[in-house]
Protein backbone atom coordinates (compact mmCIF):
# COMPACT_ATOMS: atom_id res chain seq x y z
CA UNK A 1 0.00 0.00 0.00
CA UNK A 2 0.99 3.62 -0.26
CA UNK A 3 1.02 6.04 2.67
CA UNK A 4 0.95 9.80 2.19
CA UNK A 5 2.36 12.00 4.93
CA UNK A 6 1.51 15.70 4.76
CA UNK A 7 4.35 18.07 5.57
CA UNK A 8 3.21 21.46 6.88
CA UNK A 9 5.70 24.16 7.83
CA UNK A 10 6.33 23.27 11.46
CA UNK A 11 5.44 19.58 11.26
CA UNK A 12 8.00 17.52 13.15
CA UNK A 13 6.73 13.94 13.18
CA UNK A 14 6.46 13.71 9.40
CA UNK A 15 9.87 12.07 9.00
CA UNK A 16 8.99 9.60 11.73
CA UNK A 17 5.72 8.62 10.03
CA UNK A 18 7.54 8.13 6.70
CA UNK A 19 10.16 5.96 8.40
CA UNK A 20 7.51 3.79 10.04
CA UNK A 21 5.70 3.32 6.72
CA UNK A 22 8.82 2.49 4.72
CA UNK A 23 11.21 0.80 7.12
CA UNK A 24 8.95 -0.81 9.75
CA UNK A 25 5.93 -1.64 7.59
CA UNK A 26 7.82 -2.10 4.32
CA UNK A 27 5.31 -0.03 2.34
CA UNK A 28 5.60 2.82 -0.10
CA UNK A 29 5.39 6.29 1.39
CA UNK A 30 5.24 9.74 -0.12
CA UNK A 31 5.75 13.10 1.53
CA UNK A 32 3.01 15.53 0.50
CA UNK A 33 3.98 19.21 0.70
CA UNK A 34 1.29 21.47 2.12
CA UNK A 35 1.20 23.40 -1.16
CA UNK A 36 0.59 20.24 -3.21
CA UNK A 37 -2.87 19.75 -4.60
CA UNK A 38 -3.04 15.99 -4.98
CA UNK A 39 -2.34 13.00 -2.78
CA UNK A 40 -0.20 11.17 -5.34
CA UNK A 41 -2.11 7.93 -5.04
CA UNK A 42 -1.92 7.61 -1.26
CA UNK A 43 -4.30 5.01 0.19
CA UNK A 44 -4.02 6.42 3.67
CA UNK A 45 -3.09 10.01 4.47
CA UNK A 46 -1.37 10.87 7.74
CA UNK A 47 -1.48 14.38 9.18
CA UNK A 48 1.53 14.24 11.47
CA UNK A 49 2.34 15.82 14.80
CA UNK A 50 4.21 19.06 15.23
CA UNK A 51 3.47 22.75 15.41
CA UNK A 52 2.12 23.60 11.97
CA UNK A 53 2.33 27.33 11.27
CA UNK A 54 3.78 27.83 14.74
CA UNK A 55 0.40 27.00 16.33
CA UNK A 56 -0.49 30.62 15.54
CA UNK A 57 -4.04 31.70 16.41
CA UNK A 58 -5.10 28.15 17.40
CA UNK A 59 -3.39 24.80 16.86
CA UNK A 60 -4.26 23.67 13.34
CA UNK A 61 -6.21 26.83 12.45
CA UNK A 62 -3.89 27.84 9.61
CA UNK A 63 -2.91 24.37 8.40
CA UNK A 64 -6.55 23.60 7.80
CA UNK A 65 -6.55 26.10 4.89
CA UNK A 66 -3.43 24.71 3.18
CA UNK A 67 -3.97 23.77 -0.49
CA UNK A 68 -3.32 20.07 0.29
CA UNK A 69 -6.26 20.05 2.71
CA UNK A 70 -8.72 20.41 -0.17
CA UNK A 71 -7.38 17.12 -1.54
CA UNK A 72 -7.52 15.55 1.94
CA UNK A 73 -11.15 16.67 2.31
CA UNK A 74 -12.06 15.20 -1.08
CA UNK A 75 -10.28 11.94 -0.19
CA UNK A 76 -12.16 11.75 3.12
CA UNK A 77 -15.50 12.54 1.48
CA UNK A 78 -14.91 9.67 -0.96
CA UNK A 79 -14.33 7.26 1.94
CA UNK A 80 -10.51 7.41 1.78
CA UNK A 81 -8.54 6.77 4.95
CA UNK A 82 -7.19 9.71 6.95
CA UNK A 83 -5.26 9.60 10.22
CA UNK A 84 -4.30 12.57 12.39
CA UNK A 85 -1.86 12.26 15.26
CA UNK A 86 -1.56 15.08 17.80
CA UNK A 87 -1.33 18.27 15.69
CA UNK A 88 -2.92 16.22 12.91
CA UNK A 89 -5.92 15.58 15.19
CA UNK A 90 -6.12 19.30 15.96
CA UNK A 91 -6.08 20.08 12.22
CA UNK A 92 -8.85 17.55 11.49
CA UNK A 93 -11.03 19.14 14.19
CA UNK A 94 -10.34 22.64 12.88
CA UNK A 95 -11.22 21.44 9.38
CA UNK A 96 -14.51 20.05 10.62
CA UNK A 97 -13.57 16.56 9.47
CA UNK A 98 -13.84 15.47 13.11
CA UNK A 99 -16.18 16.89 15.76
CA UNK A 100 -15.05 18.85 18.81
CA UNK A 101 -11.85 20.74 19.48
CA UNK A 102 -8.60 20.46 21.41
CA UNK A 103 -7.81 23.13 23.96
CA UNK A 104 -5.07 23.88 26.46
CA UNK A 105 -4.27 21.06 28.89
CA UNK A 106 -6.12 21.54 32.15
CA UNK A 107 -2.77 21.60 34.00
CA UNK A 108 -1.52 24.38 31.66
CA UNK A 109 1.68 22.31 31.34
CA UNK A 110 3.13 20.67 28.27
CA UNK A 111 3.00 16.90 28.81
CA UNK A 112 5.61 14.47 27.53
CA UNK A 113 4.88 10.99 28.89
CA UNK A 114 3.79 7.44 28.20
CA UNK A 115 0.05 6.97 28.69
CA UNK A 116 -2.27 4.00 28.51
CA UNK A 117 -5.33 4.12 26.28
CA UNK A 118 -8.12 1.62 25.84
CA UNK A 119 -9.42 0.59 22.43
CA UNK A 120 -13.12 1.54 22.67
CA UNK A 121 -14.16 0.16 19.31
CA UNK A 122 -12.59 -2.33 16.94
CA UNK A 123 -14.99 -1.27 14.20
CA UNK A 124 -12.48 1.03 12.46
CA UNK A 125 -9.78 0.49 9.85
CA UNK A 126 -7.22 1.47 12.50
CA UNK A 127 -8.28 -0.70 15.45
CA UNK A 128 -9.80 -3.78 13.86
CA UNK A 129 -6.61 -5.73 14.58
CA UNK A 130 -6.95 -5.10 18.32
CA UNK A 131 -9.06 -7.04 20.75
CA UNK A 132 -11.99 -5.07 22.20
CA UNK A 133 -10.88 -3.22 25.32
CA UNK A 134 -7.18 -3.75 24.62
CA UNK A 135 -4.98 -1.37 26.62
CA UNK A 136 -2.15 0.18 24.62
CA UNK A 137 0.87 2.08 25.88
CA UNK A 138 1.55 5.11 23.70
CA UNK A 139 3.50 8.35 24.17
CA UNK A 140 1.91 11.80 24.29
CA UNK A 141 3.64 15.15 23.88
CA UNK A 142 1.35 18.12 23.72
CA UNK A 143 0.25 21.36 25.34
CA UNK A 144 -3.23 21.49 23.79
CA UNK A 145 -4.70 18.01 24.01
CA UNK A 146 -7.78 18.52 26.14
CA UNK A 147 -10.66 17.25 24.01
CA UNK A 148 -13.89 19.23 24.29
CA UNK A 149 -17.26 18.99 22.55
CA UNK A 150 -20.77 20.08 23.44
CA UNK A 151 -23.09 17.66 25.23
CA UNK A 152 -25.06 16.71 22.15
CA UNK A 153 -21.88 15.94 20.20
CA UNK A 154 -20.45 13.83 23.01
CA UNK A 155 -23.73 11.95 23.34
CA UNK A 156 -23.76 11.12 19.63
CA UNK A 157 -20.11 10.03 19.75
CA UNK A 158 -20.94 7.66 22.61
CA UNK A 159 -24.10 6.37 20.95
CA UNK A 160 -22.42 5.75 17.60
CA UNK A 161 -19.30 4.20 19.17
CA UNK A 162 -17.13 6.88 17.64
CA UNK A 163 -14.86 7.34 20.62
CA UNK A 164 -11.96 5.19 19.45
CA UNK A 165 -9.55 5.58 22.38
CA UNK A 166 -9.90 6.65 26.00
CA UNK A 167 -7.21 7.36 28.58
CA UNK A 168 -7.27 4.61 31.21
CA UNK A 169 -5.08 3.37 34.05
CA UNK A 170 -2.91 0.27 33.68
CA UNK A 171 -5.89 -1.89 34.71
CA UNK A 172 -7.96 -0.41 31.89
CA UNK A 173 -10.23 1.73 34.07
CA UNK A 174 -11.43 5.17 32.99
CA UNK A 175 -10.34 7.23 36.00
CA UNK A 176 -9.47 10.93 36.34
CA UNK A 177 -5.89 10.11 37.37
CA UNK A 178 -5.32 8.43 34.01
CA UNK A 179 -6.39 11.54 32.12
CA UNK A 180 -3.23 13.49 31.20
CA UNK A 181 -4.87 16.66 29.87
CA UNK A 182 -8.38 16.98 31.27
CA UNK A 183 -10.08 15.66 28.12
CA UNK A 184 -13.85 15.33 28.33
CA UNK A 185 -14.83 11.75 29.26
CA UNK A 186 -11.13 10.79 28.97
CA UNK A 187 -11.39 10.95 25.18
CA UNK A 188 -8.03 10.36 23.49
CA UNK A 189 -9.26 9.76 19.95
CA UNK A 190 -12.44 9.86 17.83
CA UNK A 191 -13.59 8.98 14.33
CA UNK A 192 -16.02 10.59 11.89
CA UNK A 193 -19.44 9.27 10.95
CA UNK A 194 -18.03 7.31 8.02
CA UNK A 195 -15.38 5.81 10.35
CA UNK A 196 -12.68 6.53 7.73
CA UNK A 197 -11.19 9.59 9.47
CA UNK A 198 -9.54 9.11 12.86
CA UNK A 199 -7.70 11.54 15.10
CA UNK A 200 -5.91 10.90 18.38
CA UNK A 201 -3.56 12.83 20.65
CA UNK A 202 -1.16 9.94 21.42
CA UNK A 203 1.59 9.03 18.95
CA UNK A 204 1.37 5.46 17.63
CA UNK A 205 4.20 6.25 15.19
CA UNK A 206 6.53 6.62 18.18
CA UNK A 207 5.47 3.25 19.59
CA UNK A 208 6.61 0.74 17.01
CA UNK A 209 9.86 -0.54 18.53
CA UNK A 210 10.46 -2.05 21.94
CA UNK A 211 13.70 -0.07 22.15
CA UNK A 212 11.77 3.17 22.54
CA UNK A 213 9.35 1.94 25.18
CA UNK A 214 6.41 0.34 23.37
CA UNK A 215 5.47 -1.36 20.16
CA UNK A 216 1.74 -1.15 20.75
CA UNK A 217 1.34 1.27 17.86
CA UNK A 218 2.44 -1.33 15.34
CA UNK A 219 -0.81 -3.29 15.41
CA UNK A 220 -2.73 -0.13 14.54
CA UNK A 221 -0.65 0.42 11.40
CA UNK A 222 -0.91 -3.27 10.53
CA UNK A 223 -4.69 -2.96 10.75
CA UNK A 224 -4.55 -0.28 8.06
CA UNK A 225 -2.30 -2.45 5.87
CA UNK A 226 -4.67 -5.39 6.15
CA UNK A 227 -7.65 -3.13 5.41
CA UNK A 228 -6.05 -1.77 2.25
CA UNK A 229 -4.77 -5.13 1.07
CA UNK A 230 -8.33 -6.28 1.56
CA UNK A 231 -9.73 -9.64 2.34
CA UNK A 232 -7.14 -11.16 4.65
CA UNK A 233 -8.60 -11.01 8.15
CA UNK A 234 -6.08 -9.85 10.67
CA UNK A 235 -5.20 -12.28 13.44
CA UNK A 236 -6.05 -10.79 16.78
CA UNK A 237 -3.11 -11.40 19.06
CA UNK A 238 -4.03 -12.31 22.64
CA UNK A 239 -3.99 -9.22 24.81
CA UNK A 240 -2.84 -6.97 21.98
Amino acid at each position, binding site marked *: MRWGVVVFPGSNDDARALTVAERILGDEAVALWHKDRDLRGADCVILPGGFSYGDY*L*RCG*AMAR*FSPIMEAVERHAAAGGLVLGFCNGFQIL*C*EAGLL*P*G*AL*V*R*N*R*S*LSFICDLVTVRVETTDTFFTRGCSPGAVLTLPVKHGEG*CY*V*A*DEATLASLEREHRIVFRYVDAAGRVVPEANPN*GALANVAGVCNEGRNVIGLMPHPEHAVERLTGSEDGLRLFQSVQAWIRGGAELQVAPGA
Partner: protein
Amino acid sequence: MPRLLARVYVTPKRGILDPQGKAVQHSLHALGFGEVDDVRVGKYVELRLRDAALDAGRDRVHAMCERLLANGVIEDFRVELEEERR
Protein backbone atom coordinates in the same frame (compact mmCIF):
# COMPACT_ATOMS: atom_id res chain seq x y z
CA MET B 1 -14.20 55.73 1.56
CA PRO B 2 -12.83 55.72 5.09
CA ARG B 3 -10.50 53.21 6.61
CA LEU B 4 -12.15 50.96 9.18
CA LEU B 5 -10.63 49.80 12.41
CA ALA B 6 -12.09 46.51 13.61
CA ARG B 7 -11.47 45.28 17.11
CA VAL B 8 -12.20 41.58 17.48
CA TYR B 9 -12.54 39.98 20.91
CA VAL B 10 -12.40 36.19 20.98
CA THR B 11 -13.33 34.53 24.27
CA PRO B 12 -13.83 30.95 25.46
CA LYS B 13 -17.49 29.92 25.25
CA ARG B 14 -19.40 29.62 28.51
CA GLY B 15 -19.17 26.06 29.73
CA ILE B 16 -15.84 25.46 27.98
CA LEU B 17 -13.08 24.84 30.46
CA ASP B 18 -10.72 27.82 30.63
CA PRO B 19 -7.75 26.62 32.70
CA GLN B 20 -5.84 29.82 31.93
CA GLY B 21 -8.65 31.96 33.33
CA LYS B 22 -8.82 29.74 36.42
CA ALA B 23 -5.07 30.06 37.01
CA VAL B 24 -5.22 33.85 36.65
CA GLN B 25 -8.15 33.96 39.07
CA HIS B 26 -6.18 31.95 41.65
CA SER B 27 -3.22 34.31 41.30
CA LEU B 28 -5.44 37.38 41.71
CA HIS B 29 -6.94 35.87 44.86
CA ALA B 30 -3.44 35.17 46.18
CA LEU B 31 -2.57 38.84 45.56
CA GLY B 32 -5.51 39.97 47.66
CA PHE B 33 -8.06 40.62 44.91
CA GLY B 34 -10.59 38.32 46.50
CA GLU B 35 -13.56 40.01 44.86
CA VAL B 36 -12.68 38.46 41.49
CA ASP B 37 -15.46 36.01 40.80
CA ASP B 38 -14.59 34.80 37.32
CA VAL B 39 -11.79 35.26 34.79
CA ARG B 40 -11.93 34.30 31.12
CA VAL B 41 -8.78 34.73 29.06
CA GLY B 42 -9.24 35.29 25.34
CA LYS B 43 -7.63 37.00 22.37
CA TYR B 44 -7.75 40.49 20.96
CA VAL B 45 -7.27 41.00 17.21
CA GLU B 46 -7.04 44.39 15.56
CA LEU B 47 -7.76 44.69 11.84
CA ARG B 48 -7.62 47.67 9.50
CA LEU B 49 -9.79 47.52 6.38
CA ARG B 50 -9.22 49.87 3.48
CA ASP B 51 -12.05 51.46 1.50
CA ALA B 52 -14.79 49.82 3.50
CA ALA B 53 -18.21 51.14 4.45
CA LEU B 54 -19.35 50.43 7.98
CA ASP B 55 -22.12 47.92 7.26
CA ALA B 56 -20.29 45.99 4.55
CA GLY B 57 -17.17 46.03 6.70
CA ARG B 58 -19.07 44.55 9.62
CA ASP B 59 -20.30 41.67 7.46
CA ARG B 60 -16.80 41.02 6.16
CA VAL B 61 -15.26 40.96 9.64
CA HIS B 62 -17.99 38.63 10.90
CA ALA B 63 -17.22 36.30 7.99
CA MET B 64 -13.51 36.42 8.89
CA CYS B 65 -14.33 35.51 12.49
CA GLU B 66 -16.52 32.59 11.48
CA ARG B 67 -14.03 31.34 8.92
CA LEU B 68 -10.73 31.74 10.77
CA LEU B 69 -10.39 34.09 13.73
CA ALA B 70 -12.66 32.16 16.11
CA ASN B 71 -13.52 28.48 16.38
CA GLY B 72 -17.27 28.31 16.97
CA VAL B 73 -16.94 24.99 18.82
CA ILE B 74 -15.04 26.60 21.69
CA GLU B 75 -15.07 30.35 21.23
CA ASP B 76 -17.41 33.36 20.98
CA PHE B 77 -16.44 36.58 19.28
CA ARG B 78 -17.48 40.21 19.43
CA VAL B 79 -16.62 42.92 16.90
CA GLU B 80 -16.31 46.68 17.40
CA LEU B 81 -15.91 48.91 14.35
CA GLU B 82 -14.91 52.51 13.96
CA GLU B 83 -14.02 54.76 11.06
CA GLU B 84 -10.46 55.96 11.07
CA ARG B 85 -9.38 59.32 9.67
CA ARG B 86 -6.10 59.13 7.84
